[in-house]
């Protein structure tokens, strides 16, 4: 009896092979396994036989939407910035997508980073992805050389180590609190949609910090980021970060120092997160990519919470619904504005 993920893998290979064979897509973007347990390699299948290398399991943690716009561009004839777009239909790319990834694709369409028509989305309703760091913590950072996945457990082995771990215990924080596991746009589905999940405390991590004093919050923030090595894995793993020149690389003016100094690191993390406000789908790529175990996702989660509280919307739920910070209402809340609070006092 194959596991759920094994079945998905089979179906994914089949669909990808078909898309490539029939010439509907020029490439199919998925995952393949590599040399280290629990780390998957995003992989571009370009020939039908490459489809056999595709794999699906609980370690597909980086958001594939991140790769889409450049991959699509690589199939366009080269042109200079002001040249008109090429005529005629351009090659398409197939891609596997879970709920959050598909929502990022929606955001990319809304922000003109790609065209919906050029991607063939194979939807997969997410069962949550595993946090490698949680697994490492579970075995007290012992060396792991192999991990076998069952539907509800992981069998972890290493020198002098053999342990079965309950899968849900080591699912990433963002997946544990995920409300929308289903893809919002797709051309074909693998398996069934499961519907929105009812999560009572989806913002618990954020609330815990909100309840601290300002001083303790600053303490939390600085100690969370103090191991940052400024490698920008969080930024580069993020499908929202596509600016040709990131603010950290701007030289006129230079917004932030590039070295590993506390203030500069803090400003980097503040602005990186803030630039994702109203756009972030809580896919957790940033946190999964971080080599230092920084939980920068809590920052974007806070932004997600506030945007939801203030404007009642979440990013990427539909192509028609504008992104919350690219639109406005006349009567948006404004108690935070000094002069408005004066009015209140005068009344």
């Amino acid at each position, binding site marked *: 009896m194959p596991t759920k993920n094994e079945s998905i893998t089979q179906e994914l290979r089949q669909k990808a092979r078909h898309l490539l064979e029939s010439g509907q897509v020029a490439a199919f973007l998925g995952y393949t396994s590599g040399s280290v347990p629990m780390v998957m390699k995003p992989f571009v299948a370009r020939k039908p036989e490459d489809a056999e290398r595709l794999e699906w399991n609980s370690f597909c943690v980086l958001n594939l939407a991140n790769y889409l716009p450049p991959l699509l561009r690589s199939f366009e004839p080269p042109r200079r910035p002001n040249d008109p777009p090429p005529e005629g239909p351009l090659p398409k790319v197939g891609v596997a997508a879970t709920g959050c990834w598909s929502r990022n694709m929606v955001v990319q369409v809304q922000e003109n980073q790609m065209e919906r028509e050029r991607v063939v989305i194979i939807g997969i309703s997410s069962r949550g992805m595993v946090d490698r760091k949680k697994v490492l913590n579970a075995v007290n950072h012992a060396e792991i050389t192999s991990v076998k996945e069952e539907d509800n457990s992981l069998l972890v082995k290493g020198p002098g180590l053999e342990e079965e771990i309950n899968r849900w215990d080591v699912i990433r924080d963002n997946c544990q609190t995920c409300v929308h596991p289903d893809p919002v746009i797709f051309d074909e589905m693998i398996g069934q949609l499961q519907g929105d999940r009812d999560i009572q405390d989806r913002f618990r991590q954020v609330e815990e910090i909100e309840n601290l004093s300002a001083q303790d919050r600053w303490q939390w923030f600085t100690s969370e980021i103090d191991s940052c090595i400024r490698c920008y894995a969080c930024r580069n793993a993020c499908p929202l970060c596509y600016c040709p020149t990131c603010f950290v690389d701007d030289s006129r003016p230079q917004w932030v120092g590039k070295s590993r100094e506390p203030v500069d690191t803090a400003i980097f993390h503040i602005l990186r997160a803030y630039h994702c406000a109203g756009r972030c789908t809580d896919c957790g790529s940033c946190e999964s990519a971080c080599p230092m175990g920084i939980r920068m996702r809590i920052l974007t989660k806070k932004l997600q919470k506030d945007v939801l509280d203030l404007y009642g919307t979440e990013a990427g739920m539909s192509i028609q619904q504008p992104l919350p910070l690219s639109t406005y*209402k006349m009567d948006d809340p404004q108690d935070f504005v*000094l002069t408005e609070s004066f009015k209140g006092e005068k009344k």
Partner: protein
Amino acid sequence: MNDKAKNQKDWEPKIIAFLCNWCSYAGADLAGVSRYQYPPSLRIVRVPCSGRVSANMILDALRSGADGVLVSGCHPGDCHYISGNYYARRRFAVLKNFLEFIGIEPGRVNFSWISASEGEQFAEVAKEVTSRVKKLGPARHLVKEF
């Protein structure tokens, strides 16, 4: 600023005020012309619209040693560019909460709407912001030092 200066009793905060060209800057001008008294702690940066002010600019002010920041634009509905301040309002609402979330004291970064005719209002805001920042003391969290 070195710590010695910061500890002095007569410390005056430095506050960067980003004022929109069409309303708040004119309001500040009017405050001056009308001889309303307000503290000398504001350093004014004229911007075309409150919608022009980005989080980058606010953080750059703090990084460079500002003790406080004020962003002020036209009242909603009065924007010279029709909707610039509406967008700004959403962005600032989120930013203000976010900065407080990571531990920046409430009162460091402030927002207001001041029209070209509200000279008195401007002086009042300047006083209020200055007194808030004074209460908080010199900014330390995001100030670059070497």
